[in-house]
C-alpha cells in the first residue's frame, strides 16, 4: 500500500456528531478534529435587529470536520459523508480534499501510516 496521506475537510451544518462519528469509525477512520466555523456561500443571510438597527448577517453557523486518512480510501469517506449529510438543500456543504506530506504521532514519534494506525 502506497503511503498516500490525505486530509479531508468537511464543512457542513451543526449535526449530531456522535452518530456521524460512529459511521466513520465503521470504515476505519481513527481520528477526527472538529471546530465551530462560520460559513457563507449562496444561501441568503438573515437580518439581525438591535434597537431598530438592522444588520445583515450572511454568516451561518457551520462546523468543520477534519479527517486525515491513509489506509482508508478517500472515496469511502466521501461516500459515507454524502450519505449521512446530503439533504439536497443548499447548505449541505462541501468536502475539501488535500494531500498531506506527513503525520507524526507526538507520543511515539511514529510517522505516516504508522502514526494513524493506532493500536486498537
Amino acid at each position: 500500500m502506497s503511503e498516500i496521506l490525505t486530509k479531508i475537510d468537511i464543512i457542513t451544518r451543526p449535526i449530531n456528531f456522535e452518530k456521524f462519528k460512529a459511521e466513520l469509525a465503521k470504515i476505519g477512520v481513527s481520528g477526527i478534529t472538529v471546530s465551530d466555523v462560520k460559513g457563507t456561500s449562496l444561501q441568503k443571510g438573515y437580518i439581525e435587529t438591535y434597537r431598530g438597527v438592522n444588520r445583515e448577517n450572511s454568516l451561518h453557523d457551520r462546523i468543520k470536520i477534519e479527517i486525515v486518512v491513509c489506509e482508508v480510501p478517500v472515496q469511502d469517506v466521501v461516500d459515507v459523508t454524502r450519505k449521512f449529510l446530503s439533504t439536497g438543500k443548499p447548505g449541505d456543504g462541501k468536502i475539501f480534499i488535500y494531500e498531506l506530506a506527513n503525520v507524526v504521532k507526538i507520543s511515539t514519534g511514529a510517522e505516516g501510516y504508522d502514526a494513524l494506525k493506532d493500536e486498537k
Partner: protein
Amino acid sequence: MQLADSVFMFVATMLVWLMTPGIALFYGGMVRSKNVLSTAMHSYMPMAVISLLWVVIGYSLAFSPGNTFIGGLDWVGLKGVGFEPGPYSDTIPHSLFMLFQMTFAVLTVSIIAGGIAERMKFSAFLIFSILWSLFVYAPVAHWVWGGGWLHAIGTIDFAGGNVVHISSGVADLVLAIMLGKRKESANSSPHNLPLTFLGASLIWFGWYGFNVGSALTLDEVAMNVFVNTVVAAAAGIIGWLVVENMINKKPTMLGAVSGALAGLVAITPACGFVTPSASIIIGLIGGALCFWAIFSLKSKLGYDDALDAFGLHGIGGTWGGVATGLFATTSVNAGGADGLFYGDASLLWKSLVAIIATYIFVAVVTFIIAKITSMFVPLRVNEEDESVGLDISLHGEKAYHESI
C-alpha cells in the same frame, strides 16, 4: 390596617415578582444558545401581558365574589380595589393584595414556557397565554382562594400547589404533547448552566415571598412556613442528589438546583399546615420523586417536556397535595385541618379530589385553548426556523456575539 404588614407584603410581592425573571434565566440557560432569547421572551412577556390583563379583568375573575366556579366582574378595572383593606386581609391595602396575587398569575404562565421551549411560535404563545390566564388560571384560583367549590369542600392549599404548580405543570404537559418532540431533542444540552444556576437561585429566593407571604402577615403560621420552606428546599436537594447518585453515579449541579425547586414545589401547598419534620420528609420525597419522574416517566411515555416543567411542577405539586392530606396538623395551624397521619382520612380524599379535578379541568381547557389558538396561528414554528433557532428566526437577534 397595620403598616408593618403592608411593608411585609410589599417585600413578599417584590420577592415573588423576581421569580419570573428568575424562570426566564433558569429556562434560558437550559436551552441551546440559538433559543435562549426566545425562551426568555416566553417567560418575560407574561410580565407585560398578564399584568395588564390582571388589572383589567383577571383579578376580578379570580377573586371577586362570584359563583362557586368563577369570580364576578365587580372588580373589573380595579373598581373598588384601592387602599382600603379588602375581604382577604384586614391589615393590608386591597391593592397590595391584588398586586401580590398578580405576581402569582404572571409566574404561573411563565412556568408553562418550560415544556414548549425551542419550538412554539411566539405569537401563538402570546394568544394562548391570555386565554389560558382567563379560562384556566382565574377559575382555578377562584376555586381554591376566591371562595369557590374547592374551598367550600374544605381542601387546603397554602401557597398554591394546585393553583400555580399543578395547573402550570399540566398545561405544560398538554402543550408539549400537542407540539410534539423537538427535532433535535436527543441532542440538546443546556448551553449555559451558570445562567440556570442564577435563575434557580432567584426563584428559590423569591419562593420565600411566595410561601411566607401567603400568610399575609408575619405571624406564628408564617414563621412556621418560613422554617418549613427552608428545610424542604434543603431536603429536596438531598433527595434528588441521593437518587441521582445511586443511578448515575454523579451528583450534578443541575440536579442540585432542580432538587431545591422540587422540594419547594412539594412544600408549597403544605407549608402552612405541617411541622418542620414533616417538611423535611416532604422535601426529600419531592426531590427523589421529581428526579424519578423526569428520569424514568418522561422517557417511558416519550413526550418532550423540554425543560421539565411538568416533571417539577406537575409531579412535585401533586406530591405536595397528597402530602398535605397526609401530614397536615391543626397543631401548627388552627385554620388548617388534620391529615391522615393525624387521624383524619378525609383531608386526603379532598386533596385527591382537588388534584384530580385540577388535572382534568386544566388538561381539557388547555387543549381547547391550544386548538383555538392554532386556528389563528400555527402553534409550532416551521422546520427551518426551528433548525436555525428561534432567536434569529422569530426575534431577529442572537444572544451572543463573538468577534466575528
